[in-house]
């Protein structure tokens, strides 16, 4: 199942804990979150909503079958059980993304819920929507490169109704014809623009039926004029009427009304800070670096101390901002009654698990701190020393 990487509230080996009791407790406490059960290289998950088991996976099993499998491995000594707490809304999100694992509860509540939550979920799912927007932009662009002069492009040939505008005098129109015609001795402008116009009309009609009406209106507006005049007139207008347009407009429009009118959001400080933060080409100064180091140290330390049986933790973070922002994290922890674990399983294995968990936690904290730039994690070296 798709589960978030967060730090567990309870970590225990199966033999230290009564699994059935745990399930009962979770039900009683209306637990929201999930448990992870690790045995060898197999992982199982049970997702809880208000204490109820709503989804499960284990190895290749899902749903109730998975729950049964999990219960069966619980008897083994080296099975690690971790309990993770979540708020209710992330649980709904997880329900939504883990549909194949949902334990049918005999009613359709969850399905309905899923549908309801869909819109929320989209937001949660794309914390990095910035990047996605970019890639879709690129896609769009390459498309438009291929279909050069297709739909969107063609709109530029289509004259727009100019109902309120004074029509240029005959003389003006002819002058313009002259001007634009200058460089094309082979074709007369009429021919060329006629072709353009009819092409674009056809394309527009195909692609965007709602525009057909507009075109028809245009044609009637200009029924007495040749297409070339129309096109030229538009070009001419675009330039000449700039001043006219700006004087026609109400001079005293205030900005906030305009923003509202066009649904443009005022850019807020934090957005800008985030954008700048993701830019590593020198916008982070040395003071910032120190601040980031300190924050990271505290955050990592705090979540490591959340692991049971950790007695103390020292976290040191060094950032290097000379080229790309990169970092070095050294974590030294003291661990309680190591012998207790090693009684059951190999000591090295136990330590390895813990090390992995600590690295995980540190990485999560780093990623959380650089939300807009999670790839930063690749520039971080994390060392863990366990005493």
């Amino acid at each position: 199942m798709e589960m978030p990487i967060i730090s567990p509230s309870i970590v225990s080996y199966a033999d230290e804990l009564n699994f059935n009791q745990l399930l009962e407790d979770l039900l009683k406490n209306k637990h929201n979150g999930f448990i992870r059960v690790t045995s060898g290289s197999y992982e199982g998950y049970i997702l809880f909503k208000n204490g109820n088991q709503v989804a499960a996976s284990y190895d290749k099993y899902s749903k109730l079958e998975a729950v049964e499998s999990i219960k069966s491995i619980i008897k083994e000594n080296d099975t690690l059980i971790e309990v993770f707490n979540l708020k209710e809304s992330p649980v709904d999100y997880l329900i939504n993304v883990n549909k194949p694992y949902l334990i049918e509860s005999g009613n359709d509540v969850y399905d309905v819920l899923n549908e309801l939550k869909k819109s929320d979920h989209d937001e949660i799912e794309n914390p990095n929507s910035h990047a996605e927007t970019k890639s879709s932009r690129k896609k769009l662009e390459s498309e438009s490169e291929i279909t050069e002069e297709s739909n969107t492009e063609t709109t530029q040939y289509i004259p727009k109704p100019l109902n309120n505008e004074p029509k240029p005098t005959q003389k003006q129109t002819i002058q313009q014809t002259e001007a634009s015609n200058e460089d094309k001795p082979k074709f007369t402008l009429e021919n060329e623009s006629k072709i353009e116009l009819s092409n674009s009309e056809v394309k527009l009609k195909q692609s965007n039926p709602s525009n057909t009406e507009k075109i028809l209106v245009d044609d009637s507006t200009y029924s007495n004029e040749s297409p070339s005049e129309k096109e030229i007139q538009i070009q001419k207008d675009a330039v000449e009427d700039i001043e006219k347009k700006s004087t026609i407009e109400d001079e005293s429009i205030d900005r906030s009304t305009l923003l509202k009118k066009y649904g443009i959001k005022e850019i807020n400080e934090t957005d800008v800070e985030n954008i700048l933060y993701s830019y590593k080409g020198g916008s982070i100064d040395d003071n910032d670096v120190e601040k980031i180091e300190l924050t990271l140290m505290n955050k990592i330390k705090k979540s490591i101390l959340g692991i049971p049986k950790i007695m103390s933790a020292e976290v040191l973070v060094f950032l290097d901002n000379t080229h790309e922002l990169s970092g070095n994290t050294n974590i030294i922890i003291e661990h309680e009654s190591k012998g207790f674990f090693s009684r059951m399983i190999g000591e090295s294995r136990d330590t390895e698990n813990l090390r992995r968990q600590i690295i995980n936690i540190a990485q999560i904290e780093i990623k959380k701190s650089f939300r807009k730039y999670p790839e930063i994690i690749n520039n971080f070296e994390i060392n863990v020393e366990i005493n």
Partner: protein
Amino acid sequence: MTRVIAVASGKGGVGKTTITANLGVALSTYGEETLVLDADVAMANLELILGMEGKSVTLHDVLSGDAEIEEAVYEGPGGVKVVPAGISLEGLRKIKLDRLENALSKLVQNVDILLIDAPAGLEKDALAAIAAAQEMILVTTPEVPSISDALKTKIVANKLGVEITGVVINREMHDKTFLTINEIETILEVPVIAVIPDDPEVSRAAAFGEALVVRNPKSPTSNAIMQLAADLIGENYQPIEPDKKSIIAKLVEGLLGRR
């Protein structure tokens, strides 16, 4: 002292490259030693517009450390110097943006004006291009998404200490459904320094790999760009008017019904 001007927008496809290329040629024709740099390594097309594709050494090579910046400077129409980006998606990851700064500091030694065609968006490559400049020309179309992105770009550029020279409205279509110049100025709080009409000749010129200001110097679009270039350097510009004589000739032709 070299002026380093970034041409940026936020939204993609609004005409940054078109304007950079033509503005570069225009400035060169006024005698300014001008260099245009395509900082959009991922979507390079400045060299296509100027008919200079297929150059062997590109900015891409410089940024990947495989060439010196001097090797990547070519001469384009009107004497404008061009540093092509080089179209290559592969190996983009290993590009170090701080090399851009190094490259730039070498480039500016021999030029009056360096125009940087910034990539769209506000990712680090775009920010690097903007931050490398002292001034920025903000390009937008008169549509909401473009203006909204321009606003964001403006604010970020301000934070980066880059002065906004002004807004260029591109693809003005004289359409009531779009924002007016006044509205755009009010929203962005930046003066509009040029309005460039929507002009089918733009893509045609690009397809031929010719700069519009060279190919169609008499068009309103070219005049708008030439005027913008003149304003940037405090020159006077007389829009190229059509030849009077031939107008009359054509007028007569028209009256004689030969149309």
